């Protein structure tokens, strides 16, 4: 629905609720069942070696265990032992040996063994689906996994191509692709040498807190609890995630008591639900960032003063307190809050006079025209319009092109946009995921065609930041590494052609009897097993 539709539906619902008071008869979901309304039409597969979408990650986190994982009760503690009860790192920093925990069982009843771990990680590399880069960046290939990922007794050894920071490797293993599958079950369902990929798209073979009962695309996902889960049987014996596209419908279902949680309420419905009896709003910081980027091919935008000026032409507070209210918070660094190395310094604010002075110092001519690309998402378009207004105040005309992903991303990836207004979410819960794209660009030539790197897309030679990013990713001392990212971001804020503006806040509305909810923060996905009612 477009914004007008959303506005009218929200207004209609609000008006009607105001004049009609509470529902006549209140329904309630069973005490041992969690029913969630969410948009799950982004799920394309449930195979952990292939799944790379938000809703898919939510499902996968609750089905598959990993060697190491995040504890929902304490995400800030970072990765914790899960299938691996301990690990050791070789002196040269290239080999990590994991000792597998005894007594774990897959949903099939098969024991979780080192051979299953070896199979799962090798399989993810060999299948080489979209998220495979999270593992292959350590030098694993289909040809060498026989030597680099090896099980021996109750241990598994992984050997990387160079000595990366252990935290980097282990953070990556907490991603969905690190999910350990039941080798016997998966291979029993192999077809045409696909290592069970087709079967695992719609079935599960894990050892986590839940097993998959069904996934009906665009309809629902149903999970059944695993009574043998190593942390104890989850209180919610069944979890049903229903696809409900419309925010107003989610709100009605919640207020009527037919669901326990609504994950996609728009700001108007959040405001309305906040006042509803028996409903609470749960806020959680997520990893998604909103940013502006300025092409360094442009003769004016490449001037340091102009890059600075642009950061003073963003009305951070105005946007945060109006159309982004409750959904985004000001954040001007490329590492989302709660990530290792994240900093909370936001030095920029709207300052037209300062921007004017910087532009004058740079000798920017009167009547400068820039072209900006923005994808057809309402909040991004509104950010573009706000920025356009600010630029107009300093005599710069911003021509905003709104288009589909193909139109805008195509131009962006081809380095053809002066200004890009967009969003970025981390691929895995390690600082390198964002540092490696915002601040890393080893070859800035057109021929390098490094379309995956944001720095390259904006033709920005990051100078010393590329080396510093490369150094941080191999630094083994956690505190030193944290400081390195802090330093990189300080320099990035001042010199980069990026104006990082906001970090996403997820607002989930839920019945007030639902307890111990953790949506995964910026680092992981939702955990159903601690939830009680």
């Amino acid at each position: 629905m477009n914004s007008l539709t959303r506005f009218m539906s929200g207004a209609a619902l609000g008006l009607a609720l105001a004049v009609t008071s509470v529902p006549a008869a209140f329904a309630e979901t069973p005490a041992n069942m969690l029913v969630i309304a969410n948009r799950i039409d982004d799920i394309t597969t449930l195979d952990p070696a292939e799944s790379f979408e938000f809703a898919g990650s939510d499902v996968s986190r609750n089905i598959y265990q990993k060697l190491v994982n995040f504890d929902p009760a304490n995400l800030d503690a970072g990765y914790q032992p899960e299938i691996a009860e301990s690990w050791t790192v070789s002196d040269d920093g290239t080999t990590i040996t994991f000792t597998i925990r005894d007594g774990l069982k897959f949903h099939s009843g098969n024991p979780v063994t080192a051979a299953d771990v070896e199979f799962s990680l090798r399989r993810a590399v060999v299948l080489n689906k979209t998220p495979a880069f999270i593992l292959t960046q350590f030098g694993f290939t289909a040809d060498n996994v026989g030597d680099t990922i090896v099980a021996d007794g109750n241990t598994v050894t992984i050997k990387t191509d160079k000595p990366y920071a252990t935290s980097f490797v282990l953070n990556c293993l907490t991603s969905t692709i690190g999910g350990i599958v039941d080798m016997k079950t998966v291979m029993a369902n192999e077809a045409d040498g696909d290592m069970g990929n087709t079967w695992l798209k719609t079935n599960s073979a894990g050892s986590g807190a839940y097993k998959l009962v069904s996934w009906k695309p665009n309809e629902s996902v149903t999970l059944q609890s695993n009574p043998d889960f190593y942390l104890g049987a989850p209180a919610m014996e069944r979890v049903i995630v229903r696809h409900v596209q419309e925010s107003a419908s989610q709100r009605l279902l919640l207020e009527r008591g037919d669901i326990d949680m609504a994950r996609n309420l728009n700001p108007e419905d959040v405001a309305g639900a906040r006042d509803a009896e028996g409903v609470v709003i749960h806020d959680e910081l997520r990893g998604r960032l909103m940013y502006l980027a300025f092409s360094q091919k442009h003769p004016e935008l490449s001037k340091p003063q102009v890059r600075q000026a642009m950061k003073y032409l963003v009305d951070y507070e105005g946007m945060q307190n109006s159309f982004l209210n409750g959904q985004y918070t000001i954040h001007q660094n490329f590492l989302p809050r709660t990530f290792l190395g994240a900093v909370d310094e936001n030095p920029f604010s709207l300052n037209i006079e300062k921007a004017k002075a910087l532009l004058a110092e740079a000798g920017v001519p009167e009547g400068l025209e820039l072209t900006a690309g923005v994808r057809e998402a309402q909040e991004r378009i509104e950010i573009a319009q706000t920025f356009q207004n600010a630029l107009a105040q300093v005599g710069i005309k911003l021509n905003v092109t709104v288009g589909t992903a193909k139109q805008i991303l195509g131009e962006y990836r081809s380095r053809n946009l002066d200004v890009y207004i967009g969003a970025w979410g981390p691929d895995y819960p390690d600082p390198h995921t964002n540092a490696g794209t915002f601040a890393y660009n080893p070859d800035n030539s057109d021929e390098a065609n490094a379309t995956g790197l944001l720095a390259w897309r904006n033709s920005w030679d990051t100078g010393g930041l590329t080396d510093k990013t490369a150094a941080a990713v191999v630094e083994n001392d956690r505190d030193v590494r944290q400081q390195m990212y802090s330093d990189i971001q300080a320099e990035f804020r001042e010199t980069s052609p990026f104006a990082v503006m906001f970090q996403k806040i997820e607002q989930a509305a839920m019945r007030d009897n639902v307890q111990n909810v953790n949506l995964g923060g910026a680092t992981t996905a939702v955990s159903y097993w601690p939830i009680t009612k």
Partner: protein
Amino acid sequence: MSASDTNQERRRRAPLFPWIKGTLLTLGSIAVTMLGLLFVTFVIGRVMPIDPVLAIVGERASQSTYDAVYEQLGLDKPLIVQFFYYLWDVVRGDFGMSLLNARPVSEDIARVFPATMELATLGVFVGIVLGVPLGVVAAVNRGSWIDQIARVVALVGYSMPIFWLGLMGLLVFYGVLGWVGGPGRLDIFYQDIVPTRTGMILLDSALAGEWSVFRNAFSHIVLPASLLGYYSLAYISRMTRSFMLEQLSAEYVTTARVKGLSERAVIWRHAFKNIRVQLITVIALSYANLLEGSVLTEIIFSWPGIGSYITTALLSADMNAVLGGTVVVGLIFICLNILSDLLYRVFDPRSK
């Protein structure tokens, strides 16, 4: 065989030839229509500014990954070659795999279409049952308060945004009064109880004798079906009124009245009988529109039908799914046209 025998034989066979010719012409026109539909949809799908490759590989994929998938999808081949490959698959009943969920499109359509069919059938039923009598009564009482009410009912149906009516309906009948089920086809307690035979839950639950499931499914479908039925009603009642007014002003109606026939006989046995053919067209069109899937209704009521399926596929650049859905919708239109033609022959002797 004598000459007279030959002539008799020819006369006996004569009726067969036009029938075969008619059938062949119909089949030919279906084939040409389908080919045209496929071609236009295919071309639009290819020139639209959506990128199926990006949808698969993601925003941050390297150029080499992008190129590999581009080639894998056959997008490097000339458009006409791509079209003939696709046509060959469709002729064999293969709509291909969904680019996004890697499931056969035919399976997806078999899952979502019954949901739409169930909703549309009930909707058009409501539209006929209420719309036709309303139109007739309005025409018979032209200018009266009944006519004015019918006009307002139709006007509201035409002009009120469906998402607004849908939300208001949900709020009042589900949220406040609790008379009907909420968004979705069933409450969670009734999911997966009835084995899927037709995909239409009302029918499946009735066949299985699961009347509690039937009642629950009915409580969920009644509101969206009534909403769609209201829109059908608006269209059908206005058209019925218009057709009836034309007939009621015809001379044969005056003659019938002069002959002393009762008003009921004049209206229903004479005037109404003569608008049946036109009404069939109106109802068929109305039904076809509902079978296309009402995207907004499906979104508001979380109804997993073909309208939202095609829309989601389009927004996700899943062109196999879009094409498959479009072919099915095209087939529906063609089938309903054929059905209309057949019914013309039943109700209008001249067309024989």
